């Protein structure tokens, strides 16, 4: 087996970068739509936004799964140099992000089923229901979905702050690992 070049082990490959940047606007859209649908009174208009939130969320779920599976398969990237706590914080933030990006849509899907709202992917594909409606359980899932959503947003803000810290303050090339069409330093 050929050992991957230093460049290959330093920079993220195109698939990882592509998935990462595809998920950025998607996650922002999902979050914005969530705020809109929460603010609207229950009715057909709110329902439309909910459907959009669910469709985008399911798209994100599939992308996150592909990304995780790819991350497990691809050659492991070299850890960026830094203090031990920085490496530790980076590793666990990334892991937590992977976890929540996959778990959060699943909680949402379960919540949809429990509240007896059939899932339709962008109004086109009707998805099967695997859980019977249960109002009490649905409420618990709604709470969890909201809590995990806020946690995810805090993690994302931390992730972005750390990336900017690398890119603007430390200028150690860690930021450009995720930037496509960019040479490593």
């Amino acid at each position, binding site marked *: 087996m050929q050992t991957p070049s230093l460049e290959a082990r330093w920079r993220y490959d195109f698939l990882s970068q592509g998935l990462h940047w595809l998920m950025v606007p998607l996650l922002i859209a999902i979050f914005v739509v969530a705020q809109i649908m929460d603010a609207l009174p229950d009715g057909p208009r709110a329902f439309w936004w909910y459907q959009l939130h669910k469709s985008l969320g399911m798209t994100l779920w599939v992308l996150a799964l592909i990304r995780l599976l790819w991350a497990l398969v691809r050659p492991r990237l070299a850890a960026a140099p830094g203090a031990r706590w920085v490496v530790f914080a980076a590793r666990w933030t990334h892991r937590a992000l992977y976890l929540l990006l996959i778990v959060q849509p699943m909680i949402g899907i379960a919540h949809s089923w429990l509240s007896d709202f059939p899932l339709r992917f962008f109004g086109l594909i009707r998805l099967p*229901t*695997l859980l019977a409606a249960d109002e009490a359980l649905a409420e618990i899932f709604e709470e969890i979905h909201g809590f995990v959503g806020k946690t995810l947003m805090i993690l994302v803000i931390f992730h972005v702050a750390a990336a900017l810290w690398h890119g603007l303050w430390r200028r150690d090339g860690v930021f450009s690992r995720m930037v496509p069409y960019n040479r490593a330093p």
Partner: protein
Amino acid sequence: MIELTRHTARFGERLWRRGMALVVVAALYLLTAGAARSAEETYRLDNTHTRIQVQWDHLGLSRQSATFRTVEGSLRIDPAQPAEAQLDIVIDATSVDAFSEPFNSHLHGANFFATDDYPKITFVSTEIEITGAKTAQITGILELRGIKRPLRLAASLVYQGAHPLAGVKLALKDAQVLSFQAQGRLRRSAFEMGSLAPLVSDDVELTIDAEFIAQ
């Protein structure tokens, strides 16, 4: 102290690996179970053997009716989960026929279907409630003259299975059919078609006799 940190780190690694494996298994289960459950069949509405009829009272003198000659539609249904079915109907509004040319052009006009502006009438089911062995309440959104209103249909399944002529006509050898009868009621004034109501009844009764062929 160092030993403890190392121990915690190893524990964290193990927890992460196991937790993530569990998440991946759950996700894959969701995908495969979902795929297995989507034993949904799509039936296409057979325009030749479908009547969508509206009936109303004319000045207390007589019952009048009109039908729509051109109708399209589909029914997606998983026999194991009929409540999850999806019914979509698109009616060509210009095909409304009351069996009288002058009356037809009256119906096409601005006071009624305004077919120049609104050539299509659609119904999309939003909820299906199974009410008996062969009956269901189909709730959906009717869009008529660009106005969307909920409409409830009381439906009863007439037949589901191999086409009765499967043994006779070669073309129907493998055909699976489904047919139902449904009734509903709407107020035409809710769709800005209230001209002459209530002299001519505002309430319009809707009767659907539909045959579907599995795709």
